Structures are given as structure tokens and as C-alpha cells.
């Protein structure tokens, strides 16, 4: 029997191995730092710690299989649901305000012959460079009527300031920190895509008698819609993950519970109450819900985009 000539085979083999070689590092990193930890979190969420006797002395605790009981108790915990409710309310306040402001500033900066453009851009962007914890500490001081210069001025003027650390004021206080910190980033994203639009469009519009306002409303905003979708998507995910800001404000007020946001509940379960199993189950639930919401949103947007075109 005649065997196939060796050279083409070697070539074929080399050709078929190369992609795997390129894929290897990424796959390895993905497995090590992404798939494995997630898999382990899922595994932990199915485990629990059981005690025998008084639970004192050595070997009093054993890890046992818990089935889905961590999930049932995570889902049955009303705090997870009300925490999600609080975060949604906070997001409903935050996202439109922040993106509205970002779009507004981006459009202003894009107006021809704008003065101090680079400086304004930097000033609006700067708060984004301040870490969330620092920003929250800073704003926390400003929210405490006893130490805040703002409240001092208001009292001197015979007025009383709003109560920003309790009740509904807390949502305003929280949203304000995020708007302050996030507007700059979103503005840069929108501004960059505004700059990428061809100038001929504006020229044509001006020849047709469009004012700058009409250009902004009729041309610029529709043209940057994709980056608005992108910034909305990022903001939505950031909202669902809100953690550092409420954790920093918590010691300042009676009204911020340790389960104010879903992630705070995960932190409390794992690191205050020492129950990593329940924390793992809650994180898996949160991850699933976030994924569902994100993909649902993307799908919705794609559908509308396709339907519209």
C-alpha cells in the first residue's frame, strides 16, 4: 500500500496546530482565573458547614453537601429582594441624570469655537479619577449637617438643608456621588464619538439653515446613539454592582443597613457572619440576574436597531 506523501501531512498538521497554540494562553488564563473560580463558587454554594455538639473544641465543624438549600434561603431572604429594589430605584435616579448630563456636556464641548474646551473637559472628567471610597468619604462629610460647610451656609441664611442621610434623601445622596464621579467618563465616550462624525454633515445642515441646536438634536444625538447604548449598558452594570459607596456611607447613618445593596449582603454573609457558602449562593444568583438583565438589554437594543433599519 502506498502511504500518502509525508510532506503535505506535516504541513497539514502544522497548519491545524497553530490556532490552538495561539488560543492556548488565553484559554489557560480564562480557565485559571475565570472558569475555575466561578466553578468553585458554584461548588461552594452547594456546601454548608455543620456543627456537632456545642461546637467547641477541635473538629466540631464539618463541611457537608447542602444541595440547593443555600439557594432557597438566599431567594427566600426578603433582604435580597428589597436590596435589589433599592438598587433599582437608585439606578433609576442615577443613570438618566448621569447620561443626560454627560450628553449635555459632550454636545456643549462639541459646539464650534467653544472656549476653554480642553480645560472644561479635564475638569468634568477629573472626578472619575477619584476612587469611589474617597469620593464617598468626601461627600459623606458634606452630607453631615454638623460638619458640612453647605449646611453651615444654609443655616446662616436662615434655611434648613435637606436630610440627605436618611429616608429618600439617601437615594439622592448616593446618586449624587455616582453622578459626580461618572459623568466625566461617559461624557468622554460620547464626545469621542461626536468628534468622529464627518464635518460635511454639519456643513450640509448649516447650508440647509439648521441652527446649532437643531444640529445637535436632529443630527448629533441620533448619530451617537450607539455610544449612548454603550454608556447605558456600562452604567447599568455599575449600578447593579454598587458597593464601595454605600459601605463608606454606612457608618455615618442609621439608615444604611448592612444589606442595602445585594453585594453588601454578600459581603456581610461572607466576611461579617463568616458564612461563605450562603455568600457564594447569593453571588451566583446576583451574577445570573446581572447576566440576564445585560443580555436582555442588548437583545432588546439589537432588535430595535434591526427593526428600525
Amino acid at each position: 500500500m502506498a502511504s500518502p506523501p509525508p510532506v503535505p501531512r506535516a504541513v497539514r498538521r502544522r497548519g491545524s496546530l497553530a490556532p490552538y497554540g495561539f488560543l492556548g494562553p488565553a484559554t489557560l488564563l480564562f480557565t485559571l482565573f475565570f472558569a475555575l473560580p466561578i466553578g468553585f463558587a458554584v461548588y461552594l454554594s452547594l456546601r454548608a458547614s455543620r456543627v456537632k455538639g456545642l461546637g467547641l473544641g477541635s473538629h466540631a465543624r464539618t463541611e457537608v453537601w447542602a444541595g440547593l438549600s443555600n439557594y432557597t434561603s438566599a431567594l427566600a431572604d426578603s433582604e435580597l429582594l428589597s436590596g435589589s429594589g433599592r438598587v433599582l430605584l437608585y439606578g433609576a435616579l442615577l443613570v438618566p441624570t448621569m447620561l443626560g448630563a454627560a450628553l449635555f456636556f459632550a454636545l456643549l464641548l462639541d459646539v464650534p469655537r467653544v472656549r476653554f474646551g480642553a480645560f472644561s473637559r479635564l475638569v468634568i472628567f477629573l472626578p472619575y479619577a477619584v476612587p469611589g471610597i474617597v469620593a464617598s468619604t468626601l461627600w459623606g462629610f458634606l452630607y453631615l449637617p454638623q460638619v458640612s460647610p453647605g449646611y453651615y451656609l444654609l443655616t446662616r441664611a436662615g434655611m434648613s438643608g435637606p436630610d440627605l442621610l436618611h429616608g429618600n434623601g439617601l437615594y439622592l445622596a448616593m446618586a449624587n456621588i455616582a453622578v459626580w464621579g461618572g459623568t466625566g467618563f461617559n461624557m468622554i465616550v460620547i464626545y469621542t464619538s461626536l468628534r468622529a462624525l464627518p464635518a460635511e454633515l454639519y456643513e450640509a445642515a448649516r447650508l440647509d439653515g439648521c441652527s446649532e441646536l437643531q444640529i445637535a438634536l436632529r443630527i448629533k444625538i441620533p448619530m451617537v446613539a450607539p455610544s449612548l447604548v454603550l454608556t447605558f449598558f456600562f452604567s447599568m452594570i455599575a449600578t447593579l454592582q454598587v458597593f464601595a459607596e454605600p459601605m463608606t456611607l454606612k457608618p455615618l447613618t442609621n439608615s444604611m443597613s448592612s444589606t442595602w445593596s445585594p453585594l453588601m449582603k454578600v459581603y456581610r454573609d461572607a466576611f461579617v457572619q463568616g458564612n461563605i457558602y450562603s455568600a457564594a449562593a447569593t453571588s451566583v444568583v446576583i451574577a445570573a440576574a446581572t447576566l440576564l438583565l445585560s443580555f436582555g438589554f442588548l437583545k432588546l437594543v439589537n432588535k430595535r436597531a434591526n427593526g428600525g433599519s
Partner: protein
Amino acid sequence: MHRRLALAAAAALCGTLVLSACSSDGGSGDSAKAASGPVKLTFWAWAPNMDKVAEVWNKAHPEIQVSVLKQAGGDDLVTKTITAAKAGNAPDLMQAEYQALPTLVSNDVLADVSKQVGGAKSQFADGVWKQVTLGSDAVYAVPEDTAPLAFYYRQDLFEQYGLKVPTTWDEFAATARALKQKAPDKSLTTFSANDPGLFAGLAQQAGAKWWTASGDNWKVAIDDPATKKVAGFWSGLVKDGAVDNQPMYTPAWSKALNDGTQIGWVSAVWAPGVLTSSAPDTKGKWAMAPLPQWESGASVTGSWGGSATGVTTGAVKAGHGDAAAKFATWLNTDPEALAALVQQVNVYPAATSAQTGGLLSAAPEFFSNQPDFYPKAAEIAKGTASAAWGPNVNVAYSAFKDAFGKAAQDKGDFGAALSTMQQATVEDLKKNGFQVG
């Protein structure tokens, strides 16, 4: 999207540490190696300057060298140590608050060192020693410092408003209300929902025993009559606006202490340190008095904090148990060590000899107006009610913060908050397989 996943990864990482515990057991028996060179011990502590005290030991004991790794105090240190112990990376020695001892013991972090340190028993008050034995024959730590509660007040402002230092809680309430009438914008103190340790101490004074064990059963009595009495008392004051309801340890609180908006503070013997940093302008204006009593003429107090030095099971497995226990005993009973603890670390030592000896003859600088500060504190400390801690104090404490935070803010019913705390604690015990009876 990373942050969400980072969290899952963090949770998973904790788990990885748990798993690796199985493999590390075999490799830790290096007792043979230890015999050749000096034994090296690690000590996790949060008290400042503890390394300087360890230096004193290291100079005198070349065969056992202790290195201190400074920790941030608080709830997460307990979790951190438990996780480290599961991974086989626990320190040899650790500073632990009394209320955390049962949790640490039940997670197999602290070793029974009754054989090595049992002889030190006579150096401590019975109530204090009971906290490190958990009511058993075992000894899980050597008491380091105690924190009996007292009442601190602004001497000058009490005089200005014609107030008398309250000796009973009834008088305390009357004083709070009298102050409100004379100066509506001032408060005697605040009821703070962010530090359950103070509330626990006040409940101890009233006779509460939150956790008790009998046989194989735990009994949780957070909503017992004594605690209800304490909760009801503060509930009434908050409801009437007789005391403030905002949390402690905020910039607003520091300012209120500093500018005399709050003219009193129920606190522990470590209060001078806090006042020094929080209310620097009031130096020499405060005085300490015994905690107001439920029964006139009594002299009972509770504790807010206080800590002990424990030897970990990891140290015992590595063959360092004896060396670590030796250091723990030295640190908390040796005159030289106690002197260093008082002068460098600024603790109120648990050893009775140190409380009454010459070490604490001078009052804290901030209280220079009260030269008999420490003799008075020793007198107060004698009446410290014993505490009764259980294996899930962390859960009870976090339930306290949420439930009482809400109740204090709404000026609502503290009794309901107390029930919530009891319920959360019992449920957690049951969930972990404890028998609750």
C-alpha cells in the same frame, strides 16, 4: 463586567483556601526542625506598638523569636483568621476580643492551652478568666486587657447647667431630660446603633446572659428581661428626644464631643484615648464616674471590648504550642511585659496586680484633672459582671446594627429590634446545626 466576576472569584478564592487546608496538615509537622534554630512565632495583633513589647521579649529570649504582624481590628479579622487557619496559614498567636473567642474556638482556630497557662489563673479576676475558658476546663487564651464601663462627663458643663452626676439610671434619665430643658440643642449622650459592644456591656450590667450552654444545647437569651429593661430604657430616652440617636465614631459625633454639644459618654476605661483624638479641645474638662446603677447603692458594671492572647491550633500542630503559650503567659503576667503593655500599648491590663500597682499611678494625660483615675477604674472594675458569649456573636452583632439602627432612626420600639436580633441569632445557630434549646 469584571467587578461582578471579581466578586465571584473572591468568593471562590476563599473556598480554594478552605480546600488547601486538607493538604497542608501533612506538611506542618516541622517540630524536629524547630529544635535546631530559634523558634519563630508570628503574632497577629491590632493594638498599636505591640511590636515594641515583643522586642522586649525577643531580647530576653533568643530561643523564641516573636514577630508581630499588625492587623486592622474589627469583625473581618475574625473571618480572616478563620480562613487563614483553614488554609494552614494561621499565625501562632493572635489577639482576640473576648466575644470572638467562642467563634474562633468553634472554627478550630484556637487551641486549648490549659496545661501550659493554667497556672496563671490566680492573676486574673474570676469573671475575666471565665471568658477565656468558655465555662469549660479548657483555656483558650490568656486575658490581655479588660474594658469595664464607666460614665464620662464634662465636669465644667455639668457645673454650668447645675447637673448632678447620676448614680442610677433613673437619675441618668432625669439628668438627660433636665439638660434638654436647660439647653435644648445639647444632649447628655447619644444612643448609637453602630457599636453593639456597648449595648452588650449595658445588658451585662443589668444581668443579661445572652448565651449559655447546658449539655449539648445552646440557649440564646438576647431578649431576656434584663436586656429588655436596658432596651426599653434607651428606647424611652430616644423617643422623647432626651438623648441623641445618631451613631458614634462619625465626624459629626467627634465635633459634638469637641464643642460640647454632647456633654457625656457611657464608655469603657479606654475612653481617654478616643477623647484625646476625637475631642482634643476638651482636655482636662472630662471626669470619669462609676456607671449609673439599676439599684441604688450597687456597684455593677459591664464590659465594652477587652481582648486576650490566644495560641492557635496551627502553632500546636507545628510543635510551637509550648513556646507560644510561654509568650502569651509572659505578655500578660510578667511585670516587665505589663509595664510595656501599659506604657507602649496603652491598654488597661487584665492582670489584677497591674491594675493596682505603681504602673497605673499617673492618670492619663487627658484626665490630668482626675489624678485618681486609675485607682477609681480599679474600684469600678471590681464589680464587672461576667459576660456570656456564644459561637455566633458576629451574627447577633450585625443583626443589632441593622435592627437598632432602624429603630433609633425612627425613634421606634427597641423591643421589636431586640426580638429581631434574638431571632436572627437563633436561626443562624440552627442553620449551622447547633442544638438550640
